[in-house]
């Protein structure tokens, strides 16, 4: 029993079910183009045109005769229009007596092919998922755009927050901004304190010879050493590339300060290991105490601690100096 009545013209049926199909005769000439396929070449009557003039068959390779194409019946074909727009298409061929029916569809990314032509949903069979695919691509693109806008705003907010933050992200110590906040508060509240300005020697050489990862490691280790040798109420800051500051709240005794500074200097004389290799740094220290001023001024104390530091540096390796009272 045959399913389709003998002698019935199947073209209207094929046009509905497969609007992108072609019918070709035994010589490879197109005898009919489905309505949507015809829209892809609106200026050309495809009837009578040789299939191999209209398309290049990309896969399987080297197919240029109908017999070779018919040998691939049921298998997946990849074709491309020979003339621009050179839209790529998928195809499947089925013999119909001596003739053949070649059904075609857009290839992924499907929007690239479709956007070259003025097509509407009616140009696709009602069961074809191409239109749903296009819907999904548009919907996902819109959603992704919204997500990306949010991401870039969050990224901007993160950078702004980091700028406002008081923490040095490399060492976890407080930064210069935090120092500028804390010092005036100590003075306003009449709290006695000492500033210890510490600067690493030979740090640039480590960055230059062993790389920035080694330099970063050294800074992190120095921060750890400083935290380990100071009390909980003392605060350590990284205020420049290799510059640190310690604030000792309520500690102004020269002997105690000298002993903390001495421990710091001798500890920093020991090499810091990075990936098994020793990094040799050293430090110099300058100290200013609030009790040496009638009316302590943070900016002046910082300048004085800095001057004491440079006096230390000029005096040799691993030295410390107090700013002279006056």
């Amino acid at each position, binding site marked *: 029993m045959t399913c389709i009545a003998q002698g019935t013209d199947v073209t209207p049926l094929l046009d509905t079910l497969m609007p992108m199909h072609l019918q070709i005769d035994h010589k490879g000439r197109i005898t009919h183009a489905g309505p949507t396929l015809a829209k892809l070449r609106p200026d050309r009557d495809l009837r009578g045109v040789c299939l191999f003039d209209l398309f290049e068959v990309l896969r399987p390779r080297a197919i240029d005769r109908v017999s070779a194409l018919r040998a691939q019946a049921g298998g997946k074909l990849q074709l491309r229009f020979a003339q621009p727009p050179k839209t790529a298409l998928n195809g499947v061929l089925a013999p119909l007596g001596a003739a053949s029916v070649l059904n075609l569809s857009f290839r992924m990314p499907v929007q690239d092919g479709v*956007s070259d032509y003025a*097509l*509407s*949903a009616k140009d696709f069979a009602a069961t074809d998922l191409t*239109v749903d695919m296009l*819907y999904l691509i548009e*919907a996902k693109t819109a*959603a992704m755009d919204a997500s990306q*806008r949010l991401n870039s705003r969050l990224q901007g907010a993160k950078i702004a927050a980091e700028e406002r933050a008081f923490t040095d992200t490399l060492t976890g110590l407080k930064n210069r901004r935090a120092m500028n906040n804390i010092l005036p508060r100590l003075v306003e509240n009449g709290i006695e304190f000492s500033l210890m300005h510490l600067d690493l020697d030979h740090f640039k050489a480590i960055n230059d010879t062993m790389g920035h990862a080694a330099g970063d490691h050294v800074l992190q280790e120095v921060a750890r050493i400083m935290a380990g040798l100071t009390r909980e109420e003392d605060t350590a800051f990284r205020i420049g590339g290799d510059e640190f500051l310690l604030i000792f709240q309520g500690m102004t005794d020269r002997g105690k300060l000298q002993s903390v500074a001495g421990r710091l200097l001798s500890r920093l004389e020991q090499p810091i290991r990075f990936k098994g290799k020793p990094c040799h740094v050293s430090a110099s220290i300058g100290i200013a105490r609030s009790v040496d001023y009638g009316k302590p001024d943070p900016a002046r104390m910082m300048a004085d601690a800095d001057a004491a530091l440079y006096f230390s540096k000029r005096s040799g390796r691993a030295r410390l100096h107090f700013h002279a009272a006056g």
Partner: protein
Amino acid sequence: MHGLINRAIQCFVRDTYGEDCWLAVARDAGIDPPRFEAMLTYDDTLTDDVLAALGASLSKPQEELCEDIGTYLVSHPNTEAVRRLLRFGGATFEEFLQSLEDLPDRARMAVPDLELPQLELRECGRDLFCLMCKADHPCFACALLGILRTMADDYGALVCLDFVEKGPGRDLIKISLVEGTFAEGRSFELGAGL
């Protein structure tokens, strides 16, 4: 409420009444910073606060505002994506109506946490349809009315729209299709939105 919905309200105010109007509404509603992110979720009360502040500022009933928002969503150039996505529903206005039941699922394909109200379409006579909108928030059905009105124009269809019933979970809109192809309508080509 999903950020997309809050963001739509924000864009509606900004594009229709200007940035200053939005900033004033946001201030009155206590939205700080004065912006909604499309891909975040917000407390439902914020949406109510914004709509209340907007209604007070423009001296317009909320229902009317929500209908305007619906119209805006499918007609303003800044929200062309919404119009295009709805036009995927079908080639004619009637097909578009039939596709509305799939809308919540289709929306979820793109944005998994976007919950739109369930819609049920019934044919209740020749060229007569009843659309049930099962939403908790009254704004949805009013916005839907604005969307339907504008989409009918988009398809070039002549329709009459009216509420038959109102209430949480049972908003019912009657749609009588006077003429399916009354005018030319706006074009919709596949792939043109990308």
